[in-house]
């Protein structure tokens, strides 16, 4: 549907027109009853505005066309009329009341987050989301999976460019899902248009919202509160599944987590850790410290050749696990598994010519985490 390579952008734009199916111009009707109600409300207000516009601009353009000097129009002398002025204060007032009634009704419904079937805590991080299914023993991070090569125009862009993640949040169809929002660093905002849920995720606070998705499918959204450099690269993918598929997903996710934990007790070679570490680094660290480890001067320190990663190993492990207060360096202890932490630290100590030969075992990380 939308697959274009632009050689001459403007001409490309013109000739590609017939091939484009969607010039989307309106909000979605959504996948929940609330979203449909919001859509209807939006359309009501829109048509009221159009009607007022037609009347006001109609009179205005009538005057512009007919009451112009070049047509010999003589200016009349009236310049106030109390009755008219009161009337056009009262009529808009009545129209506003007519709009406020359905808006209030919808708002009251949106605020009723009681009696949920599932509670999911959503935590915003720079620049990924963490989903914890409360009481379900499910806890994972979700990051954008669009490769940097596509963003930097070094590879053709995929169909869901910028709107795809490694671990989507999964919901069962027809159940009331309550979301609890908070954030780890700055304010983010979780928005999925089809669910008509947009709520700020604020550090130190818990906000709530809810949805009952009515159709199986994949729904996409993005962070909508400016949260720093990669604000534009923080998508949300919601997969709504049938109850049976959802239960299967829960079981699969739990056993994957157990396998992950078990692998921490295995022996890992330097090569294995380096390979895994590069992957982890590119998803979790490269956004700030860059893929080449050089960082961004003045904002994010370089890792290549840094004393932190070439000499003092304890300090290095500590900063990766616990972050650094007052800076953008997050605590990764809760975000990554022991294996991933060991791998990424090992990778940083050996990549980009650091070549310390140091290797950190997952067991050591596990001990430190306990």
């Amino acid at each position: 549907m939308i697959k274009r390579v632009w050689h001459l952008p403007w001409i490309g734009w013109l000739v590609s027109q017939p091939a484009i199916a969607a010039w989307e111009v309106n909000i979605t009707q959504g996948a929940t009853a609330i979203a449909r109600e919001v859509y209807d409300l939006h359309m009501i207000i829109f048509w009221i505005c159009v009607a007022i516009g037609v009347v006001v601009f109609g009179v205005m353009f009538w005057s512009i066309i007919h009451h112009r000097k070049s047509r010999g129009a003589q200016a009349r002398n009236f310049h106030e009329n109390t009755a008219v002025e009161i009337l056009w204060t009262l009529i808009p007032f009545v129209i506003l009341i007519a709009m406020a009634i359905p808006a209030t009704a919808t708002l009251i419904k949106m605020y009723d987050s009681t009696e949920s079937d599932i509670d999911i805590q959503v935590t915003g991080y720079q620049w990924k989301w963490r989903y914890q299914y409360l009481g379900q023993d499910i806890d994972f991070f979700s990051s954008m999976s669009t490769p940097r090569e596509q963003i930097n125009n070094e590879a053709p862009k995929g169909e869901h460019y910028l709107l795809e993640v490694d671990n989507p949040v999964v919901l069962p169809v027809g159940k009331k899902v309550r979301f609890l929002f908070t954030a780890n660093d700055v304010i983010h905002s979780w928005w999925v248009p089809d669910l008509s849920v947009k709520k700020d995720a604020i550090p130190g606070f818990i906000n709530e919202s809810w949805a009952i998705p009515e159709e199986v499918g994949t729904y996409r959204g993005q962070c909508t509160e400016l949260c720093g450099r990669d604000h534009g690269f923080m998508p949300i993918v919601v997969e709504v599944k049938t109850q049976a598929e959802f239960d299967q997903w829960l079981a699969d996710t739990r056993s994957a987590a157990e396998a992950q934990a078990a692998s921490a007790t295995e022996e890992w070679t330097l090569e294995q850790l380096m390979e895994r570490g590069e992957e982890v680094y590119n998803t979790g660290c490269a956004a700030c410290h860059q893929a080449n480890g050089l960082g961004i001067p003045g904002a994010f320190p370089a890792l290549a050749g840094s004393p932190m990663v070439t000499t003092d190993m304890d300090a290095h492990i500590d900063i990766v696990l616990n972050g650094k207060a007052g800076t953008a360096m997050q605590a990764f202890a809760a975000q990554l598994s022991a294996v991933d932490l060991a791998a990424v630290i090992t990778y940083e100590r050996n990549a980009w010519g650091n070549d310390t030969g140091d290797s950190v075992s997952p067991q050591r990380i596990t001990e430190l985490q306990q």
Partner: protein
Amino acid sequence: MDTTLSPNMDDTDHGHGPAKGMGRWLFTTNHKDIGTLYLWFSLLMFLTGGCMALMIRAELFQPGLQLVQPDFFNQMTTMHGLIMVFGAVMPAFVGLANWMIPIMVGAPDMALPRMNNWSFWILPFAFSLMLSTLFMEGGGPNFGWTFYAPLSTTYAPPSVTFFIFAVHMMGFSSIMGAINIIATILNLRAPGMTMMKLPLFVWTWLITAFLLIAVMPVLAGVVTMMLMDIHFGTSFFNAAGGGDPVLFQHVFWFFGHPEVYIMILPAFGIVSEIIPTFARKKLFGYASMVYATSSIALLSFLVWAHHMFTVGMPLAGELFFMYATMLIAVPTGVKVFNWVATMFHGSMTFETPMLFALAFVVLFTIGGFSGLMLAIAPADFQYHDTYFVVAHFHYVLVPGAIFSIMAGVYYWLPKWTGHMLNERLGKAHFWLSFIGVNITFFPMHFVGLAGMPRRIPDYALQFADFNAVASVGAFIFGFSQLLLVYNIISCIRGGERATDQVWEGSHGLEWTLPSPAPYHTFSKPPVVK
């Protein structure tokens, strides 16, 4: 209005003209010189902020990152917003106020001329400081013009301290300017110029000046709290220390919402001067215009949290701010109806200032409609922080505030320079701007509704086409401003002599003066009957 102008070029004048050389501009206390300085400064900032906007639109022409990196993109959006608000729109209005208010009320000068010089000269320093942050290590402010904490405190680049000092300086300047305007209007009116005979531009500026005095200290307060959090270990906005990130937003928008009215009320005044002139008819509903402006100003203090519908307020708060916000549509509607009624059965001509004023009425009303839609809280959850909001406030601020400033400049330029402007160029500038503005901002409604968040340097493929259109429009609008610059300069250097009245239907004290307006006016106050 019946006015009798006492001769002002008599021997009381002692031939005091402007000083020679640079000293004239550095040390001047003359309201006309200071008005001119403000206007040139604002034009320079408008072009600077505009170049940043073009950088943003160039990056957004296609999906993918082509020209700039995300961090620099964020610096551009932040600086574009700050410069346009504090550097372009506000100083332009202050410049028009300096030039026109003393003349319109029959005063010899501003009430506090030395402070007037001071309040202007702070600005170039403030903006030099702010622009210099772009070249500092870690880059300039990159957290949006609303600079929400903790992104702008804990996670900000080191240059944020300089940004805070620059904001403080702008605040000093604005407050001093506002005090001066209030003092001039309340104390220096000519005999017979009662409050209900004030020209509407003067009325709207009086109300704006009170808004400025009320809210600039709030802005100063919030940036001082940021400074404390960053350097002195306080936790106003740091949840980990017991602070509240949402407090920042409440305080910011308690300043920020009246601020957006500061940027539109003088525009209402300018348009209310221009439309009657070119419709050759008195303004319809003068009294209700004054009351409507005052009501808008009062309501502006009660609606700040409609910028924060998604922060998780209680239902009662959400409802209150929704109703109060919707209510603003009533006085705003009265103003639009009055302008239309002024045109109705007039005898209209369409010189450049009138074209800009008419475009103002139409496009500002469209911005008002999207504003009303945004006021409806449940629907706002879908609009908030998307390009629909970007479209809304650009319709209010570009064809609103900026078109009105251009209308005012074209309207009063012959009075300032003594030369008529080049109508053909003026009309070309108008049409290119009008078309450019709509091509730029109208598609933003669509991408916003379709789901594109604001302040992102790259976007999903379904938003590509409208973004390409918007970028083309931005370049049309941007480059057509060179016509404005050329027209102003050529009008200063020469052109057809302007008469005293300049426009056939013009009314008010400023048109009783010679063109160009003499350096010192009204050494004896005119009598207004």
